[in-house]
């Protein structure tokens, strides 16, 4: 029963990890950028929700109406000011640049919020629903529902709209996309905006289910990267599956063995996968045609 509970917890938590990982892998798929700042952007999202809740008493879920557009803007600005000017060696340079951008944001957050751990403790954070002997914390249920809604919206955007069609075209064959007149920079800026918004949505849940500070970003980014490598860089479905699988494994190991080992298993699974398939679970050796 404990294991069943752990599996369900893993799936519920995996849901909002999928949000953050989807943002990371989408950005990579479109512009080959490993957004190393994704972890701190999640924390930034968490702080925004926290600040709105603690100062203005805006429910974090409702607050997404403010934080998501704001974070979208952050992503767009980062693209135009930081990524677009990079001319050569883009893959490595953009990775290092995002690493540096993340550090600046971390420093700023640390100045504003200090390094005291905080948590967005809404009324439903500590309440839960019980079915038989299974316990479902309300926040997990709500956040899972939100993840499903947002990921569905993302799929709708990608697969049912013209913008999504253009974005996927740019992802599959950037040169051909330019040849039909698609503005790759605009698509890229937009994609980074979406990726950062998804980070913020994940951050809202993260900040409600964990006490955090700016330094939490390191743990987050390494988990997210593990998920994305596991799922294959640039693969959206890979990221979703990997989020759920990784979190389920973590939670199961946590109850069977110990919570700390659960976390370690996370990385050990990653290493095992890479020993067998260096390109990740769903990764193609060449992500895009050159």
């Amino acid at each position, binding site marked *: 029963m404990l294991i069943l509970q752990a599996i369900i917890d893993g799936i519920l938590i995996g849901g909002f990890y999928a949000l953050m990982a989807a943002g990371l892998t989408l950005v990579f798929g479109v512009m080959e950028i490993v957004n190393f700042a994704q972890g701190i952007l999640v924390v930034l999202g968490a702080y925004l929700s926290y600040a709105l809740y603690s100062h203005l008493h805006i429910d974090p879920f409702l607050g997404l109406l403010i934080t998501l557009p704001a974070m979208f803007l952050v992503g767009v600005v980062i693209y135009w000011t930081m990524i677009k000017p990079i001319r050569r060696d883009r893959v490595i340079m953009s990775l290092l640049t995002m*690493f540096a951008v993340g550090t600046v944001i971390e420093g700023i957050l640390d100045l504003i919020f200090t390094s005291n751990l905080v948590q967005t403790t809404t009324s439903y954070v500590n309440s839960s629903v019980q079915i038989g002997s299974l316990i479902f914390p309300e926040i997990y249920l709500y956040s899972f529902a939100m993840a499903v809604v947002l990921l569905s919206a993302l799929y709708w955007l990608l697969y049912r709209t013209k913008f999504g069609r253009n974005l996927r075209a740019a992802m599959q064959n950037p040169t051909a996309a330019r040849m039909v007149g698609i503005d790759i920079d605009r698509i890229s800026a937009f994609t980074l905006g979406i990726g950062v918004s998804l980070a913020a949505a994940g951050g809202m849940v993260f900040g409600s289910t964990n006490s955090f500070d700016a330094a939490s970003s390191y743990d987050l980014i390494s988990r997210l990267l593990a998920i994305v490598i596991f799922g294959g860089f640039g693969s959206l479905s890979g990221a979703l599956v990997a989020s759920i699988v990784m979190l389920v494994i973590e939670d199961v190991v946590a109850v069977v063995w110990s919570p700390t080992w659960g976390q*370690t298993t996370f990385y050990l699974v990653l290493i095992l996968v890479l020993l067998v398939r260096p390109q990740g679970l769903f990764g193609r050796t060449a992500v895009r045609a050159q």
Partner: protein
Amino acid sequence: MTATEIAPVGAASPQHVPYRPPRAVRYGATAGLLVLLIAFPLVLPNPTVTSIGVFTMIYLIAAIGWNIFSGYSGYISIGHAAYYGIGQYTVALITIHAHLPGGWGLFGLLPVAGVVSALASIPIGFLLLRVRRHTFIVLTIAIMFILQLLAFNLTRFTNGSGGLTMPFPTWTGNFFNMPFYYVGLLAAVVAGAAAWWIRRSKYGLGLFAIRDDEERARGLGIKVTRSKLIAYAASAFFVGIAGGLYAPFVGSVYPQFAFDPTFDLAVAVLVFVGGIGTLSGPVLGALVLIPLQQYFYLQFGNANLYLIAYGVLFILILRLLPGGIVPGVTSAWRARLVARARARQEDTRPEDTGLKDDAGQKGRA
């Protein structure tokens, strides 16, 4: 037809303008710097200042070591804190389990810390070096976090988040920092000598070839996997020593400070700012930035204010001087000399030099 007759090949090249200052200048500067570093704590014995000196030495060793792998081979690692941590834990665990007293004897453990780090780096490197580019960078930091988690989890061994406490040294007071400083300086000199030697060696030339075009290097008979692994282990060795010096200096070892992601950032920034892949780059970076960071810390009491400064600096360097200060300054200086040589030549021979003006475009990723 003999070689000298063909017109287009190097025909109108100006007499060579060197890329580096003359040997006498370089050796003189090195000796002068060494004298300054030896004299520094004697002139300014204030413990606050000398403790900045010790931190500078620790980062100097690490930066030189990191550069041997990442700078020379072009594989950027942002997870070398793994070996910083292993070095710290090696010294702390041996001290505690062997019930060693605090004191000079602990410095004897520095080579051990280096060797253990290097040994640990071999299987890790073997795994990491299977992948390239972004996946490599990402995995280096993942490995670092795995080790941090292990340090937290293997409580019986590491005491987990409780950390380990080192015995106090036998010396105190204003003299406290001195031994750490000089041992650190000695280690930094050894690291610098090793980096210099590798740069001069056939083996090192192979590393640079790998940086420029790995497949091509393989095709010229270079054992690329072995070369990269050796460089990785060598850099782990020195970073391990840096960790081994840090542990007795601060007197305690905690997982989050041993396997510290900000250490990774700091080392990468130091070397990038100074000049990646150069001998003097890491030295310049560490000697300028670490005192600045420590100053920030002491002045504003906020450990993370320097994060902002570092981040901004890193962005600026990546944008404006992607090679770092040393190559940036030397190439600007050389451009002036070339321009002058050309101006002199204009009078006698108005042809093109046969060299492209824009060297930047050619670099292969």
